């Protein structure tokens, strides 16, 4: 470990790093491969699959509510119920409403409070003349170590150009090439880490925020969508045939249970960063507690690649109060270099994220990291970037500069101290190309779903996924919701689930979903106790 002053003083050598064996690097230093990090699921349709222990505890838990809790409760009706108010959920809701469905969009926090707004780097789509859908497809599969579902990846990359056109039609802005007129200009394309072509489209370094801005407005202005904010879902409802037919919601304001019945349900509840797997800080928002995974799994939806999480290489290591906050990959895509405490480059900065993250963890483990006030990490050379591209920090990397301001230093003079941060759930609920899960009536889109990214996600594919599959799931849900209103809606699936827990020798008193992280100021257990007493 090298003291901060020494690390700053060390001359930074821009010579390319020595190549290293990627597989050995991942096996040795990626947190997914840490000894004891995984256990095997013991109950449910994906029993036998490896899964991080903290997530397995939640997946193999008992429900928060039971039948008596839903008796005599107000029932809201919709044709399509969308769970989650991030990008995927809002786009699914918008698509379903435009297809003529009555849509109820419910969200744990507020609309847009999610990870979509934190997507900084951009969105991938093969729109360049020298690029192709085939290259995008191959890049995605290769980065995911060939574990992604080929049909899903093909669907996503095929939707790429149309998704960008759709976003522009919604009013979203994109960066244009230098010197181009605003009208008729060409989209600025950057080369994302792990890709073979310049394919990353962006809006400054807050692409996701810009996306969410226009989608949120569209949702609010679309008749046929009712939005319920601060209504976390605590259980899914089924009809007697096991079809998903709605959800049990907890209205945080009045602390009451509300039921929503629907012909089809789209689950877009995002990821699990707030589980802080392996003790890592996270870039994720406050609500990323794997609720959707827990509920869908309990109902019989299969999971895939849940053992695989993405640790973003460039999370803030210092100052501690911002630990885990994301620094966009745009900084590296624009040419920002990483140095260890000795002033050496140690990895190709544009290698896939899992490789870069593992390399940083190797530097830390092997004592070549820099340390500032006890926080260890490596240097993201923003001064070097500014020197090579004058003005880039102020114009293109706005969020990064803002972050430095909050941390109390000038990024043009001082580098960031960074280390990997728990960023993305690569796997999730298994879906088909229309967003269908194994449970009839239940659809899934966005980070909660699995199969698009294999064991590692390319930057820019998360935004593309949520647009492509938000639209696919929304449209498919409308189709599924046509027909009779679901009848006999209840919690019939819970008894079988409990019997499964008993048979596997698992405790019955562990309750999930988590809804809020344990260090928050919401005591869900107390809230539910109060509800039972009422």
């Amino acid at each position, binding site marked *: 470990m090298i003291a901060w002053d020494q690390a700053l003083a060390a001359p930074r050598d821009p010579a390319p790093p020595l190549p290293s064996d990627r597989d050995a690097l991942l096996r040795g230093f990626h947190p997914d491969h840490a000894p004891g990090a995984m256990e095997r699921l013991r109950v449910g349709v994906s029993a036998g699959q490896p899964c991080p222990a903290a997530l397995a505890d939640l997946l193999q838990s008992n429900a928060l509510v*039971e039948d*008596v809790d839903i*008796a*005599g*409760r*107000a029932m809201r009706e919709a044709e399509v119920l969308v769970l989650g108010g991030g990008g995927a959920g809002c786009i699914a809701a918008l698509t379903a409403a435009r297809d003529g469905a009555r849509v109820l969009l419910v969200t744990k926090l507020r609309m847009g409070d999610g990870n979509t707004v934190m997507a900084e780097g951009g969105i991938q789509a093969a729109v360049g003349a020298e690029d192709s859908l085939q290259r995008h497809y191959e890049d995605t599969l290769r980065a995911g170590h060939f574990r992604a579902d080929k049909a899903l990846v093909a669907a996503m990359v095929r939707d790429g150009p149309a998704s960008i056109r759709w976003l522009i039609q919604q009013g979203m802005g994109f960066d244009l090439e230098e010197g181009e007129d605003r009208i008729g200009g060409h989209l600025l394309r950057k080369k994302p880490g792990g890709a073979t072509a310049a394919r990353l489209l962006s809006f400054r370094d807050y692409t996701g925020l810009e996306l969410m801005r226009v989608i949120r407005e569209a949702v609010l202005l679309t008749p046929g969508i009712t939005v319920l904010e601060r209504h976390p879902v605590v259980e899914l409802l089924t009809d007697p045939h096991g079809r998903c037919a709605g959800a049990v919601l907890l209205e945080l304001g009045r602390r009451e249970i509300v039921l929503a019945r629907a012909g089809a349900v789209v689950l877009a509840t995002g990821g699990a960063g707030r589980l802080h797997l392996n003790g890592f800080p996270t870039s994720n928002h406050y609500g990323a507690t794997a609720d959707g995974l827990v509920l869908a799994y309990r109902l019989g939806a299969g999971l895939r690649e849940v053992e695989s999480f993405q640790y973003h290489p460039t999370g803030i290591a210092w100052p501690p109060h911002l630990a885990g906050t994301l620094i966009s990959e745009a900084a590296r895509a624009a040419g920002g270099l990483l140095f260890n405490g000795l002033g050496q480059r140690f990895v190709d900065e544009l290698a896939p994220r899992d490789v870069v993250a593992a390399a940083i963890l190797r530097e830390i483990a092997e004592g070549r990291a820099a340390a500032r006030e006890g926080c260890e990490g490596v240097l993201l050379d923003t001064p070097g970037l500014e020197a090579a591209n004058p003005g880039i920090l102020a114009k293109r990397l706005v969020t990064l500069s803002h972050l430095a301001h909050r941390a109390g230093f000038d990024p043009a003079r001082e580098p960031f101290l960074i280390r990997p941060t728990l960023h993305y759930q690569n796997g999730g609920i298994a879906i088909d190309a229309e967003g269908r899960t194994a449970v009839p009536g239940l659809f899934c889109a966005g980070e909660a779903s699995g199969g698009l990214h294999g064991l590692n996600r390319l930057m820019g594919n998360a935004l593309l996924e949520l647009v492509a599959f938000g639209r696919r799931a929304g449209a498919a849900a409308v189709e599924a919701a046509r027909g009779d209103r679901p*009848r006999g809606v209840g919690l019939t699936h819970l008894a079988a689930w*409990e019997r499964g827990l008993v048979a596997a020798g698992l405790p019955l008193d562990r309750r999930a979903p988590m809804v809020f992280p344990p260090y928050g100021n919401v005591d869900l257990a107390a809230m539910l106790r109060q509800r039972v007493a009422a």
Partner: protein
Amino acid sequence: MMVLTDPALRGLALDGYLASAGHGLRAALRDPGAIIPVIEASGLRGLGGAGFPAHRKWAAVAAAPGPGRWIIANGNEDEPGTFKDRFLLAETPHQVIEGALVAAVAVRAAQVALYVNPRDAATVAGLRDAAAQWAAHPLLAAVSAAVGEAVTLRVVESSGLYIGGEETAAVAAVQGGFPFPSLKPPFPAQHGVHGAPTLVTNVETLAQAGHILEKGADWYRGLGIGDAAGTKLFSLSGDVLRPGLHELPMGTSLRSLVFDHGGGMLGGRGFKAVFTGGPSNTLLTERDLDVAMDFDSLRARGSRLGTGAMIVVGEGTSILRKTAEYVAFFAASSCGQCPPCKVGTFQVARLLERLEAGSGGPGDLEALRNLAALLPGSGRCGLVDGAATVLASSLATFPAEYQRALR
């Protein structure tokens, strides 16, 4: 305790079945006149739910004059929580047919209809296959000889609806008509299929008959506990650890069924009540845990054994929601002939749904109480009575759950 559920009785091959079973039918053929007395001595009751002494029904058909007599083996079974007949028909078709042929010999009926719910296509196909094997077997020729004319064994698919299991509705359906119940009398025993004397009997009752003829009335009586005779298939479901079909001595206590055979309450929840099949009877509660589950003991407690379906409700499950679910089933199952049933079950279901959805008021509760008092006895079959009974019972036993749901 395995009489009906003996693994040796399972399978589709008739030769395999007759190698180890079929002794009851052979005994019946040796002495047809002894069948009904043996059934009487055995204490066999109608196991479809009514518990009517089997020998009286059989004797009535045997004594009724007229040609073209019928047996209807009733396997319509559609009520929530009951799944015994589908087991017998799917797993032990020859056991059921043997019993039906014993009855055919006893009442001299040449037309035997296996009247089954078409819900499971594989079961229906299996039964047709089983019937065809019997048609080619010399044992059926012996049955024909005993009856006095050629016995025809046929599979008749029911409408699959609950009401089709009522005996007069079954007769109508076998005749090719709409499965509507009709007023009684006349009873099917005198005036059944095409006006001929007809024995309509649940398949579980028939299945028992073969074993009784084989092993004797005393053996059968001895299987039961106390005064009760034989065994019963209990369809156990709800908040228990191990739901499923349990064949137990008639007269087994509810406590033993739930806590020994059912593995106890799911998740260690408190016991609240049991809806008995199906589910149209007075609720059993904690004070009934030690009551013997047989027709007479439960009737003495103001409830009924019914089909032997026991839907267990624990703390954590709402009686109001369960009652609403079952009344909604009855409302959807009403054939609509009798206005009080058609309108009454619909209104009760609507009021319960309002309460259950949190939009009901005290007036709705009052209306439910009135309907519970008004409706019984107003239909030509028992459907409306069942709906009213389960409503009245849940209102009387769990008033707090209804109060809590009021706006």
